[in-house]
Every structure is written in structure tokens, then in C-alpha cells.
């Protein structure tokens, strides 16, 4: 009977729409974590024109600190967050002081920075593996119930919701700091010209300290969120490859670009996983990279800089 057909089709449409929206929501939540990672990376890049490839290691440490805070110290959830982000903030700053600053002070070529970043990343990853912590996968203790919050027919996983909210708050705070505070002004000035801002009286070392600190804090939060949603293992740092790609997609050096690119990547990934197959999910990031490089290398919102002679 035609009426039945019609109802059937309508039902299918609504179901498809629901699935579609569900994917978007999932994509937003993982995308927001990518955004936290990508912004931490872009922050350093926009000022020092240097890709901190050790960022992944810091994120991984954040995941572990959070894990041990919850399991060993048995502190409440939000305290674990604070411990984790402070820990990674400290780590990032320590890395800057011990590794990058000496290179910066002697005007080392770009290549040396990348090599050192790689060294730091390997060091972090493997010291965890070789230590008593070991390479075993660990799961966070369940903090929230796994029953999702229902928004009509769409299921919002509590963790996903949390990821999105925390990321949004963190990024919002970062934006506030950069746009509305004095130190943020110094950061913005330094991102245009290190020499120029020095002449204006900006303490560049302090600015660099701050951005590494901020980047480190974001990394800690990202690490914990990632660990909560998935598992904790020493190679978590490799996920940052995706956030680097997201940063390129959004435009290297642009913070809003990093956020935008990450969210888009998250959504595209979940769509691919949902509609095609989960095997292609990890490859999508790479396909996206090729697409960006061929079509518009400066990304969606990137700034192109010309070197001065």
C-alpha cells in the first residue's frame, strides 16, 4: 500500500538523518581533542616558525599522569586534570629550557631543532616503555557512567560530551588570554616579528616560556581526554601526526585554522569510519594532506610569509 511505503521511506530518512547527526557529534568530540593538540603545536609554530614534533610525547605523558593520578593517588577527576596539565606544562617548559633554548641562543639552523625534537620524542616514548611502567595498554578507571545522554534520538556519550566541553573551555580560555590580556598582546606581537617586539620591550624569552607553558597545559588536557576515551599507551604521541595534518589543513601558523581543521578532520574521519570502513579512517588524514598540498598548501586560513634577506 502506498501509504505504508511512504511511512517506511520517511522513517528511513529520519533514521539516516539521525545516523548522520550522530556521526557529526562523534566527529566533533574527537575533533575537539585534535584541536587541543593542534593548537598547542600551532602556538609554538606561529611564533618560532618551528614544528615541535615532541608535542606528541608531552601529550602522552599527560595521559599517563592523569591515569596514575586516578589510580594511584585516587584523587577526584578534576584534580587529576589539574595535576596532569600542570605536569605537562612543566614538562614542556623544561624541554624548552633544556633543549630548544640552547639551540636558539646560538642561532642553530632549522634542521637541528627538528632533530632535537625527534630525539626528545623518542626519549619520552621509550623511557616510558623501558621503565617499570612498560608498554602495556592501560584503561582509565570508569569515571562516568556509560549510559549516553539522549538528545532526542541522538546519543551523546558522556565522555564525548565532556571532551567537547572541556576542549571548548580550554580553547576559549586560550583565546581570551591571547586576545584580551597583556601577555597575549606580547604573544601576538612576537608572532609577527621577534626582533620588532624585542625593540618594543617585550621579553621574548618570557613569551616563549608562556607559549610553551600554554601549549603544555593544552597537551596535558588533550592527553587525559584521549586516555579517557580510548586507552593509554606509550605511542599515543603518534596521534599528533593527525593534528599536524589538521594544522596544515587549517593553515600552518593560524590558531583558528588549527581548530577548524581539526574539527573538520574529526568529522571527516568519523564519517569515513561510519560510511566506508574503519580501516580507511586513519588513511583519510593522509589523503586530506595530499589534497591540501595539491590545492592550497597554505591551508584554509594560513598566512604566507616571505623570508627577508
Amino acid at each position, binding site marked *: 500500500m502506498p501509504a505504508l511505503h511512504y511511512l517506511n521511506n520517511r522513517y528511513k530518512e529520519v533514521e539516516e538523518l539521525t545516523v548522520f547527526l550522530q556521526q557529526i557529534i562523534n566527529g566533533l568530540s574527537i575533533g575537539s581533542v585534535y584541536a587541543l593538540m593542534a593548537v598547542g603545536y600551532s602556538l609554538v609554530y606561529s611564533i618560532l616558525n618551528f614544528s615541535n614534533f615532541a608535542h606528541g610525547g608531552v601529550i602522552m605523558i599527560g595521559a599517563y599522569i592523569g591515569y596514575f593520578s586516578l589510580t594511584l593517588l585516587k584523587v577526584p577527576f578534576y584534580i587529576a586534570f589539574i595535576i596532569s596539565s600542570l605536569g605537562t606544562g612543566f614538562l614542556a617548559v623544561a624541554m624548552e629550557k633544556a633543549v630548544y633554548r640552547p639551540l636558539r641562543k646560538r642561532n642553530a639552523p632549522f634542521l637541528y631543532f627538528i632533530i632535537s625534537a625527534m630525539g626528545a620524542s623518542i626519549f619520552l616514548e621509550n623511557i616510558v616503555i623501558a621503565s617499570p611502567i612498560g608498554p602495556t595498554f592501560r584503561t582509565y578507571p570508569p569515571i562516568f557512567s556509560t549510559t549516553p545522554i539522549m538528545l532526542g534520538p541522538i546519543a551523546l556519550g558522556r565522555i564525548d560530551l565532556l571532551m567537547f566541553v572541556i576542549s571548548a573551555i580550554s580553547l576559549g580560555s586560550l583565546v581570551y588570554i591571547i586576545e584580551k590580556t597583556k601577555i597575549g598582546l606580547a604573544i601576538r606581537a612576537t608572532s609577527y616579528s621577534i626582533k620588532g617586539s624585542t625593540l618594543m620591550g617585550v621579553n621574548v624569552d618570557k613569551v616563549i616560556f608562556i607559549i610553551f607553558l600554554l601549549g603544555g597545559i593544552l597537551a596535558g588536557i588533550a592527553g587525559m581526554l584521549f586516555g579517557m576515551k580510548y586507552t593509554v599507551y606509550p605511542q599515543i604521541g603518534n596521534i599528533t601526526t593527525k593534528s599536524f595534518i589538521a594544522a596544515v589543513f587549517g593553515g600552518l601558523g593560524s590558531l583558528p585554522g588549527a581548530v577548524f581543521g581539526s574539527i573538520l578532520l574529526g568529522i571527516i574521519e568519523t564519517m569515513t569510519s561510519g560510511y566506508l570502513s574503519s580501516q580507511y579512517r586513519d588513511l583519510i588524514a593522509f589523503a586530506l594532506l595530499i589534497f591540501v598540498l595539491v590545492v592550497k598548501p597554505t591551508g584554509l586560513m594560513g598566512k604566507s610569509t*616571505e*623570508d*627577508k*634577506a
Partner: protein
Amino acid sequence: MSVLSLKHVTKKFGGLTAVGDVSFDIEENEIFGLIGPNGAGKTTIFNCITAIYTITEGEIFFNDKKLEKLKPFEIANIGITRTFQNIRLFKNLSTYDNVLTACHKSADYGVLSSIIRIGKFKKQERELNDKTAELLKLMGLWEYRDMVASNLPYGLQRKLEIARALALNPKMLLLDEPAAGMNPEETLQLMELIRQIRDKFNLTVLIIEHHMDLIMGVCDRIFVLNFGVPLAQGTPIEIQGDKRVVEAYLGKQEDHNAEG
């Protein structure tokens, strides 16, 4: 026919106009000076000519050939070379290797030939080495040939940069503050050297400088830039007498008198 011709060249960085509507022509074998207070846009013009920057408006011609679409290395290959304000030598290479590397265009053997090493390779390598020796001796750098470039005294580093630029058999040489950091005696020697190489290699030279004795002493004509905009152009005598130029460099005459 002019060798280098800038027509209404403008370079903007976002909202900032670094160079605005600059036009001049340089004749063959001229030594042409480009002066102006710091930040006037002189090095920017160099960067525009050598395609390190892309110009926002205008055209640049080299012997009637348009330069805007070329890449920096192509510009070097059609005969324009330069030195840099903050010396960009190959710091960790020896003096000899700095010049030898720059001679590469005088050979054309391919990668395969360098592996198999028959035919052109040996002959051309010998030629490159001869040429390097000749240039070094001419510039008075032969005895320093094995010294690492960054260990050379400052004045010799600048000379080495010039030697390196000459290795390309250029038709035109752009010198960016070649006398920076030199004492008066060295500056005089440099003036002589510039005249010598202009004659010997049949060059046209464009110089940016702050040492007024060098500029006035060696240039045929001078172009004055102030805040990216043309201020005056003429022979050294004309420029020295030009009130606007004096003002730009020394401040307004009235204020001077008021304070004195």
C-alpha cells in the same frame, strides 16, 4: 639602452607599503648608488629585483627582459648577482669552497657524468678550479683559501661574498652595504676594487651604502629613497646639494638652527 629598468615598482606587506612607486634606469657600466635612511626600503628593492620578494605593482626589466615571473636562481642565471647586508656566506665551508661552489654554472656535466667520471667531468672540474684560483687571487683571498669562511676577518668576508658573486660571470652586480664595518682605509680599497672589477668584468653595479665617501666617490649616479618613496636622483654633486636629501638625513634646517 638601459641595463636595469624599474617602472613604478611598489611592494606592500599587508597594509605596509615598503616601497612605493619607484622608477629608475641604470645604464651599462654605470655604478649606480641607492641611498636613504635606515628602513627606507633599499634592501627591499634588492629583494624585489632578485625575486626574493614578489612585487605588488610595477615592472622590472633587465636588458628588456621582464623579471617579475622569474625565480631567484633564474635571475642569477640571466646575469644578476648580489651580496647581502648580513653576509650570507657558506659559513662552514672554506673560502675556496665558497667560490668553487658558485662556479657551478660554468660546467654543465650531469649527475651521471659525475658518477662515471669520463668525458666532460675531469676537464670541467679542472676549469672550475682554475677559475676559482683566478678569482681568489684577484680579490686578494688566495692565501686564505683554506680558512673556514666564518673565521675570516670581517672585511675579507665581504670581499669573499663579492668574489662568490663574480663566479657567475654576471652582467650586473648588486652590492648591499659592502663597506659596512670597514674602516676608512678599507673603504678606500673597496672603492678601488669596485672600479677595478667593473672595468675588468664589464659590469654594471648597483650599490646600497651608508658610507657617504664611498657613494660619492665611486658612483656615477645616485638615487635617494626615503620611507620607501623616491626623493631625488642625480649625480653625486647634484645629490649633495639637494636640500631635500640633506633634510631627510639630518633633519630640518630650521630645527637645527633653533637648537643651535
